[in-house]
């Protein structure tokens, strides 16, 4: 009886935790997207007002936080610093590939970042601003969708996790 009791509690706690982890993924994604938007804003103003070259600029921004985008920045500069003839776009793609392995970002978010990298540094200031704004707009759209998903799903995931655990307990014991 005692063992049954303990097992049931473990199962319920476990499945509730899984529910919370799923719920957290939604929260993390909105946070991460929000951070990307803020970072792109900094990038834009630095380019417009200081015209700082990208390697210095990315290094500077990457030290401010430890979000996905900051790690991508820092990795890109690491690759460029090797000076082995890799272009900015290649370094950027590689950095995104390495740094988003365990990310909560969706494939669509990542694709938007990759596209931005294709245009960074390749034109004059006016043009750069356009590209960054465009990327920002699209990420903002994803961000809004992410908030909606978060509102709908966070509670759902948590409840589902708990209820799933309870169901299993009822069915098996």
């Amino acid at each position, binding site marked *: 009886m005692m063992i049954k009791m303990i097992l049931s509690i473990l199962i319920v706690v476990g499945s509730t935790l899984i529910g919370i982890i799923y719920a957290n993924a939604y929260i993390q994604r909105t946070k991460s997207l929000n951070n990307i938007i803020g970072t792109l804003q900094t990038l834009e103003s630095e*380019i417009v007002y200081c*015209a*700082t*070259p*990208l*390697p210095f*600029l990315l290094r500077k921004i990457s030290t401010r936080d430890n979000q996905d985008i900051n790690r991508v920045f820092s990795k890109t500069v690491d690759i*460029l610093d090797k*000076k*082995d*003839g890799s*272009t*900015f776009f290649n370094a950027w793609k590689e950095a995104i590939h390495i740094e988003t392995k365990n990310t909560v970002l969706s494939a669509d978010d990542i694709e938007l970042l990759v596209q931005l990298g294709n245009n*960074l*540094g*390749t*034109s*004059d*200031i*006016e*043009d*750069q601003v356009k590209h960054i704004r465009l990327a920002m707009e699209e990420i903002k759209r994803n961000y809004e969708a992410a908030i909606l998903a978060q509102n709908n799903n966070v509670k759902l995931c948590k409840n589902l996790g708990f209820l799933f655990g309870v169901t299993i307990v009822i069915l098996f014991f």
Partner: protein
Amino acid sequence: MMNQMQPNYFHQIEMFLCPEIRALVSKLPKDILNAIEEVRLRVHRPLMIYCNGKDHFIDVNGKTKESANASYIVTKKNIENTLQFITNYSIYSVEEEMKNGYITVQGGHRVGIVGKVLLSKNEIKSMKEFSGLNIRISKEKKGIASSILKYMVNDKKEFINTIIVSPPQCGKTTLLRDIIRNFSEGVPELGISGQKIGVVDERSEIAACFQGVPQNDLGPRVDVLDACPKAIGMMMLVRAMSPNIIATDEIGRGEDINAIEEALLAGIKLITTVHGKTLDDILQRMYIGDLIKRGVFERVVVLSNSKGVGTIEKVLDGITLKELTKASIKNKVG
């Protein structure tokens, strides 16, 4: 021996070339690599280098050729990638410099750029669709001024106004740079003490500033006004930096002459250069000719490439126009 003492200039620009071209050019023999003056990339045209007064095609195996057959054809991608490395992956950061058609990179080397120019209100706004690059390796040649320094001071060991007359590509800027360095350091053997020198570097060639730091050694007593128009720059230096000598490159326009008069009134000595084959050439010119006829410049140095780049053809007394040297001096260093 001399070659070993020279720094490896190609090594400094190597990292600016895109990997494909870097691989080809690095295969060239050492003596050619050390002599390279220009690397030229033109879209859909053969890759070329210029050295020892001649240009060469480079073939797909990294060998020099006299004819364009089988030479490596530069692609648009090559140019775009090379430009990325030159501008530190940020074309926007050199937008202002690009309006002049060239940018100065680390080491003082210059890269000329052509492409499609965008105008706005009759001014160059920016450039895109780049179609050609000319990477010019700048070589500091320390010591080339040594043979003429003694002509550039009077009996009291004071610097006297000097003008260098030279056709293009005969090393006038290189010579000017070395003269500046010598006078700014001082030459104890000739009893010349160090002088404060103001340099107006309109075309960023003399000091070759990269991010505000002169890439060429000009000695300890030099103030550089980078990319400043000569006439305004000379006035600024006179008022702000109290130089003993003002150095500029390639004067000739009317407003330059006014600025020179102003500087002379303030008791400042001048060293400058002018484009031209012979002195008679220059005497015909409107502004600068008058200045020389009035005896403003006490020394005239004429360069040529009759015995190699940088030959000092003659040194003249600017007032009597008599030659002070007996024969032309071969002046190839390194």
